[in-house]
């Protein structure tokens, strides 16, 4: 049945947190009240990606794009737009001065994007298997089951040039081939949905918005390598994704798409969900498998690689969520088509979680080879509050910084590595002039030190030592020799750690030392933090000639460190001051300096 209008409400975690559910319910009520149930369908979809502007409501076929919608707007949307055909101008996205309020296709955020992985996110109801099927869902599985041999599938992936999106960028076809070649009665497929990188949520959105695409790909992998059991290892912190996945698996089972003798092909495949429990290192493939086996998630040396000896000692293909979300499209449209997108070494698209000091935070998908400048300034709308760009960080705690001068580098696996960063899983965090690079490096290292499993000493001890050095530098007791010590320990960790966590943990420090060495030296020699983030190096003073004695600062100071008579210049007691900066931000007369 075709409807005249479709109202799509974003039901991703982002929009949920701002009452998307109420908006959805209200819209349904309004549609029913207007007797339009036969003409209008209200659908709750996965994430649209433009999280900064949420909650978002889209109306098809008119292509209207409503942002920051409130539950009470439901009646306007139905009575004005649906019934009278007049879009609610006030709610349309405002693209700025010269463009004004625009329709979906003119929203700059989407113009340079190319959606393969996110093809269904924000388009279909993820909890309705029929909608997935209507958009060629499970057609790739059918093709693989009935008209392709396992070798054909691997060939197609080879032509496509798909590389793992979980961080390392290993060619997917090779991984599958290794596993296929091993003789074994039992093999496994694992979907890595642990997404531990702090500052990334691509995988969450795919699982929330299009869970069947991952399930279908796991089955294709199973058929290709000869596995009958799959596991999805997902973070417990993602309740909506878990719930949508559970529903998807149940529905697929009901449709005979999971289970025994799938579609009469004789192929059996089943999928189970396993919850993570808050350990970053469990994203590492061998640790993840230990965790599925019910143990502490500690990595083990490789080789043997999982493709040969993985879960319970059996050959195991382990792929990231985003990697898998590409598979069905490649099977249907062909490896050649996919291989035509991107750069020489990196094919297809990449999803990034664009966050930090950027105007348009959100989830974006661009062809490989897009430049950071396009991502940050065209799609992301530039830096918030007119501040100056400082760096873009990719690869999370395993990655590094990219500075202004390299913004025009086309993004692919190799280019990022040359710059001292990595593609990583897709976190892209933008910092501005207010961010201290030493502090950011310390933040990442603090994360890896916390998350180190402690199995090997280079990571366990080296990480702690490096952190202590950074701590001293940011507290004003650093010495110049620390810089070299940091580099030396970092080098040792890189070479001697057992797993990727320890090997890459020094990267943020090494990279900031490379591009922002002068900031480190400033902290050490001048005891100065130019961005004002390192509190111990700050001093707040009141300028007597500017202070009019309004008493505001004395009132906001949480520790009563400011004294003074009304209409007389005030004074900060430096002994008491905890350097919170409340006075500095509240003074209306610019009478307080920070140095």
């Amino acid at each position, binding site marked *: 049945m075709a409807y005249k209008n479709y109202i799509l409400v974003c039901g991703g975690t982002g929009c949920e*947190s*701002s009452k998307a559910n109420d908006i959805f319910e209200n819209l349904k009520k309004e549609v029913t009240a207007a007797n339009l149930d036969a003409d209008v369908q209200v659908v709750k979809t996965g994430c649209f990606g433009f999280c900064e502007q949420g909650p978002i409501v889209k109306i098809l076929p008119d292509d209207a794009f409503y942002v920051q919608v409130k539950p009470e707007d439901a009646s306007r949307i139905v009575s004005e737009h649906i019934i009278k055909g007049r879009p609610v101008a006030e709610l349309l996205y405002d693209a700025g001065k010269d463009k004004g309020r625009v329709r979906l296709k003119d929203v700059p955020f989407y113009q340079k994007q190319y959606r393969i992985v996110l093809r269904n996110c924000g388009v279909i109801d993820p909890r309705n298997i029929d909608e997935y099927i209507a958009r060629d869902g499970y057609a790739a599985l059918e093709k693989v089951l009935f008209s392709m041999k396992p070798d054909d599938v691997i060939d197609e992936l080879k032509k496509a040039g798909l590389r793992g999106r979980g961080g390392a960028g290993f060619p997917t076809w090779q991984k599958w081939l290794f596993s296929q070649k091993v003789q074994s009665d039992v093999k496994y497929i694992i979907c890595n949905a642990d997404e531990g990188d702090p500052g990334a949520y691509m995988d969450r959105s795919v699982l929330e918005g299009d869970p069947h695409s991952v399930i279908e790909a796991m089955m294709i992998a199973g058929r290709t390598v000869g596995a009958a059991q799959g596991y999805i290892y997902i973070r417990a912190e993602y*309740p909506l994704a*878990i*719930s949508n996945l559970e529903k998807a698996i149940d529905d697929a089972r009901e449709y005979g798409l999971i289970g025994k003798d799938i579609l009469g092909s004789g192929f059996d495949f089943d999928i189970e969900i396993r919850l993570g*429990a808050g350990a970053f290192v469990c994203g590492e493939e061998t640790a993840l498998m230990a*965790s599925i*086996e019910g143990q502490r998630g500690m990595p083990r040396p490789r080789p043997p690689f999982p493709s040969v000896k993985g879960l319970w000692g059996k050959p195991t293909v382990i792929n990231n969520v985003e990697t898998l979300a590409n598979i069905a499209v490649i099977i249907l449209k062909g490896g050649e088509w996919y291989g035509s997108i991107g750069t020489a070494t990196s094919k297809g698209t990449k999803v990034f979680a664009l966050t930090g000091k950027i105007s348009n935070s959100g989830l974006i998908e661009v062809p490989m080879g897009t430049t950071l400048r396009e991502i940050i300034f065209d799609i992301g709308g530039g830096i918030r509050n007119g501040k100056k760009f400082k760096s873009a960080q990719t690869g999370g705690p395993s990655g590094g910084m990219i500075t202004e001068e390299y913004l025009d580098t086309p993004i692919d696996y190799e280019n990022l590595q040359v710059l001292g960063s990595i593609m990583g899983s897709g976190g892209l965090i933008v910092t501005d002039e207010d961010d201290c690079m030493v502090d950011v490096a310390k933040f990442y290292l603090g*994360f890896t030190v916390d*998350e180190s499993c402690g199995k090997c000493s280079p990571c366990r001890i080296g990480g702690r030592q490096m952190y202590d050095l950074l701590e001293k530098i940011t507290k004003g007791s650093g010495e110049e020799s620390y810089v070299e010590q940091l580099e030396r320990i970092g080098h040792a960790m890189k070479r001697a750690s057992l797993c990727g966590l320890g090997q890459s943990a020094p990267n943020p420090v090494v990279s900031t030392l490379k591009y922002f060495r002068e900031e480190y030296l400033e902290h050490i020699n001048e005891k100065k933090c130019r961005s004002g983030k390192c509190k111990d190096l700050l001093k707040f003073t009141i300028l007597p000639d500017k202070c009019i004695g309004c008493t505001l600062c004395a009132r906001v100071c949480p520790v009563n460190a400011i004294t003074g008579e009304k209409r007389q210049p005030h004074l900060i007691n430096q002994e008491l001051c905890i350097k919170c900066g409340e006075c500095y931000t509240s003074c209306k007369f610019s009478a307080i300096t920070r140095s």
Partner: protein
Amino acid sequence: MPNATETCACAQETDEQKYERIAEIIEGYGAQKTNLIQILHMAQGIFGYLSLELQQFIADKLRLPLSEVYGVVTFYSYFSTTPRGKYTIGVCLGTACYVRGGKKIIDRLKEILNIGPGETTPDQKFSLEVMRCIGACGLAPAITVNGKVHKQVNADKLKTLIANL
């Protein structure tokens, strides 16, 4: 397989009934030790935390030494061995939230609640947690209250939020 996200449905249950329910869950998993983590998830969902007694109970049922169960419980930060408050406030300190002021939110909450991360107020009403990226980066800085995400919080929003709990 039992539903993986099942949590406590009724607060009126006695401890005995809770233990019974956990025993059933363990049975449902065929008392296999490879399901230890799933079982711990559900046990924590039912009791709110994993006391040593509860860990011993699970260890016995799975025929594992307590040390192994304890080892797993303490390895994963999601598991708690102390009772939680009625409301667990989780402050995200993932990178996006960090650069958009997550640390200030923590400081403010410490002031308001008078407890540090990992602690619970004496009246058992609030627990404070630091979280490592909840994947709500587009909404930074974000916090969760009993799992529900609240976006773009600031000092004012915090006060009203807590006053309304």
